[in-house]
């Protein structure tokens, strides 16, 4: 069997990817600022907040992790936050699987670099570009780098703003995360049928909240929703 040809990986592709990410940057940067503000409210130091954004680079999981944040940490706390982040980011497994045909033949280093910055926005850009016949893997990397830079650049002012507000509860800043999540539901809405698992998730989370101390309700609810999704035929 002959080896499949390597996908192209050019500077021009990286530039094209960065350009394609521009329309999606403002939304990502608003999210990053909200995360920065929420992190400041939770008492994270600046370096911790920036390192968090730089290495995890996945907004929803970062926000949820803040909800269970502790300092000092117990071992149970570390376990919970790790499982929580893995649960929230499990959708990336599906994203990676979907974009894998695009990466057949790419070198290990290229795959490692592209997957490090793989996020919802540049995944979408890459899927569209590849679907239209594009074969330059640099596009996904370029869009990812642009998003990563915007993500970090916007985390900083969010943190600084969140740290100086004297009475955060008065301005609702303690609820920035649920507010942002609620807004995110709108573009996710694809009709009532795909939302049935959401209702299951909400119900299970409320029951878990009443029965289990701490924030395990997020994991219980999310898994209940995923199981409901698996069992419901949405064809």
């Amino acid at each position, binding site marked *: 069997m002959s080896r499949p040809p390597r996908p192209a990986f050019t500077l021009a592709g990286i530039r094209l990817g960065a350009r394609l990410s521009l329309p999606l940057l403002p939304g990502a940067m608003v999210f990053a600022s909200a995360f920065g503000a929420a992190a400041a409210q939770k008492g994270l130091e600046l370096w911790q907040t920036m390192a968090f954004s730089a290495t995890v680079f996945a907004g929803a999981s970062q926000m949820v*992790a803040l909800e269970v944040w502790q*300092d000092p940490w117990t*071992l149970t706390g570390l376990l919970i936050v790790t499982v929580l982040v893995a649960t929230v980011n499990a959708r990336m*497994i599906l994203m990676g699987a979907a974009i894998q045909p695009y990466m057949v033949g790419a070198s290990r280093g290229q795959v490692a670099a592209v997957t490090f910055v793989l996020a919802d926005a540049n995944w979408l850009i890459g899927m569209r570009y590849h679907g239209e016949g594009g074969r330059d893997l640099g596009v996904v990397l370029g869009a990812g780098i642009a998003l990563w830079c915007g993500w970090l650049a916007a985390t900083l002012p969010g943190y600084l703003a969140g740290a100086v507000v004297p009475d955060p509860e008065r301005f609702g800043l303690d609820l920035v995360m649920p*507010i*942002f999540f609620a807004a995110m539901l709108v573009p996710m809405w694809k009709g009532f049928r795909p939302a049935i698992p959401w209702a299951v998730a*909400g119900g299970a989370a409320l029951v878990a909240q009443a029965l289990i101390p701490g924030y395990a309700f997020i994991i*219980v609810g999310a898994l209940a929703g*995923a199981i409901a999704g698996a069992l419901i035929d949405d064809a």
Partner: protein
Amino acid sequence: MPEFTLATPYGTLLALIAMAGVTYLCRASGVIFMNRITIGPRLSRALRALPGSIVIATILPIAAQAGSPAFIGISAAIAVMIATRMEVAAIAAGLLAISLARFIGL
């Protein structure tokens, strides 16, 4: 029984490493193992239901605990998001609604 705790800042450092590690594992595993495993329709549906489920499972209990200002803020954010499709406007509306609700003592 007092639980063993990790001294500042080592606990946070460990948390960051663990979170970054599992996230990278999620990012890379779909690409790496795709040749060996196939994601069937059932698992695919479960993963597709996951993002919305996480959002609901997170905000509903938090809002239930925070009371009516939280629900007012969330409703305002959703309404503005539907109308404008702009995250900034939605967050601003949500925070404003919570501020007002708390100001009048709800």
